[in-house]
């Protein structure tokens, strides 16, 4: 009886010891678990690599301090500084007044896992493998693009060839006309004796006297002069294509396109008022306090803030003062996309006026666009009344979108 009890006791004891042993050695350093713990607890202040965020970058942290010290530090950093630990005090002096948060809830194994993850992340071989995979994928995509564009280039090539043949025909025609007009056969030996300029002078003189050529030239002249005049007249007051060099080479393509920053983040007034607003430097600084601070273009923001002087952006889109336009009415109430009037801003390196912004352009849209009356009780009665009149699809023009005094007052 006692024997059985004893063997039972020893059995459980060995089992417990075994579990403990396996938990400390077998699962102690699990980088996958470490990654999860790192992103949840550490990533807001520490980078895995060398970059300094709020606290130091954790690359080679295991070489700077030994594991036991790190575990103690992470669990109670303030206590270590208070106790006068030399390394801890040095670290605190470097990052004063910020004190690292204590992570008493993390077990020794958790911390070991995190350290294992940091070590794994910084060991070199993993990165190039991923890099080649990406490069391979990129290459494939580029090839696909190549095929597509080669088809396009084929069409261009054929078109160019046709143009060249036409030009050859035209040149040949001119040559025969010139030959016919020449008094001396240009291929005869006596023609070679006459100097080149004399020959040219004679040929052009004769060409000038030919009535067919004169009529043709006059017609071409009148047509081109007419086109230049009409184009010039239509272009008065229309700044379409205006894309001035701005004081800072800001790229919408990078910010709105690649990094997908919403238009509203910087143009804060677009849903709230008449103007969309040009962001003040403090909005730039939300990211550029850390990102690419050494670039000369970004230095311009810092200088503007230091001197407390505005950055003088050149206004691109401007409606004449005689017309009233309100952004919030169109964007917030009407639900229009910015791109509808401003073009594909997220693809523009330099901001450009894409639309004409003429009155005809405004009116055209007011005629075509249905009123966004969904979930907007302001329009309930209007919709009802229009339905009675047989207008099912209420356009902006139906509710006064063409009235002069809506915009001109």
């Amino acid at each position: 009886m006692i024997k059985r009890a004893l063997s039972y006791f020893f059995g459980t004891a060995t089992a417990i010891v075994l579990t403990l042993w396996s938990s400390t050695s077998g699962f102690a350093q699990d980088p996958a678990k470490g990654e999860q713990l790192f992103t949840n607890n550490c990533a807001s202040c520490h980078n895995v690599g060398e970059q300094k965020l709020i606290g130091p970058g954790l690359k080679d942290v295991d070489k700077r301090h030994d594991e036991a010290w790190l575990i103690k530090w992470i669990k109670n950093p303030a206590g270590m500084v208070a106790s006068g630990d030399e390394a801890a005090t040095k670290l605190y002096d470097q990052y004063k007044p910020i004190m690292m948060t204590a992570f008493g809830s993390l077990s020794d194994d958790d911390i070991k896992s995190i350290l294992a993850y940091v070590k794994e992340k910084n060991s070199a071989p993993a990165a190039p493998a991923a890099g080649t995979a990406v490069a391979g994928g990129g290459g494939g995509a580029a090839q696909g693009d190549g095929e597509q564009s080669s088809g396009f280039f084929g069409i261009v090539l054929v078109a160019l060839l046709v143009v060249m043949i036409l030009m050859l025909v035209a040149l040949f025609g001119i040559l025969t006309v010139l030959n016919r007009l020449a008094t001396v056969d240009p291929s005869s030996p006596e023609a070679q004796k006459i100097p080149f300029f004399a020959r040219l002078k004679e040929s052009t003189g004769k060409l000038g006297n030919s009535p067919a050529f004169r009529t043709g030239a006059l017609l071409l002249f009148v047509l081109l002069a007419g086109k230049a005049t009409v184009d010039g007249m239509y272009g008065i007051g229309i700044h379409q294509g205006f894309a001035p060099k701005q004081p800072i080479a800001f790229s919408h393509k990078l910010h709105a396109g690649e990094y997908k920053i919403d238009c509203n983040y910087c143009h804060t007034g677009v849903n709230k008022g008449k103007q969309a607003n040009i962001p003040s430097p403090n909005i730039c600084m939300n990211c550029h306090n850390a990102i690419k601070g050494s670039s000369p273009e970004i230095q311009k923001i810092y200088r503007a803030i230091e001197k407390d002087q505005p950055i003088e952006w050149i206004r691109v889109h401007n409606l004449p003062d005689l017309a009233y336009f309100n952004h919030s009415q169109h964007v917030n109430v009407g639900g229009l996309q910015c791109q509808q009037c401003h073009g594909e801003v997220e693809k523009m390196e330099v901001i450009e006026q894409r639309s004409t912004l003429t009155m005809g352009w405004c009116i055209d849209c007011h005629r075509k666009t249905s009123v966004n009356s969904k979930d907007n009780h302001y329009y309930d009665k209007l919709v009802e009344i229009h339905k009675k009149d047989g207008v099912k699809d209420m356009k902006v023009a139906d509710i006064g979108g063409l009235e002069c005094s809506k915009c001109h007052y």
Partner: protein
Amino acid sequence: MKKYLPFVWIAASLVVVGLASLKRDPQHQAWEFAPNMYYPVGYEPLSQIDANPINSATGKGNLNMRVPVKGTIPRQYFASTDGDSVISKLEKMDMIARNIGPNDLAVAETALTNPFPTDEKVTKQGELLYGRYCLHCHGGSGKGDGPVGKKYGGVPVYSSDALKDLNDGHIYHVITYGKGRMWPHGSQVSPEDRWKIVQYVHKLQQEP
């Protein structure tokens, strides 16, 4: 005279061909028919045609906008601070929040609560606003993996142990004054919008 006629013709043709094939110079605006009707006589906040003679004296160049008098606060709901409506609650919260300084995170945690009721509609509006002001850093599900966040670094995970229980006041205060790596966003996001975002962030905190 007749001797030079061909040259005159050639020169005229060149000028016309040049004019006809001219593309507008993107560096300059087009000709204007009546600039005195296009440009406002009064000062506009975001454009300046002639130098501003008043503000140039203050050393601010052509700045049209003036800094409000120190201590100025917007009072759009001033008349309605009494009562139980959302707007009066919002205004009351705003009054309290304005007296909480950038370093008083602990005070904000206890003193502020969301004036908006917890419902689907507000959360939905919060989601829209979150997309505008937060998503590019904090990511679609609040995991700190937005396209800008990856480059900026140090963007926390809302659902992590440290952040998943943070209350209304804490989140509101962090949006207003920033915390750690995050800079203040109070100038961009109105108090009303901040509270709506707070409600949506609560939803993201629960997301695994």
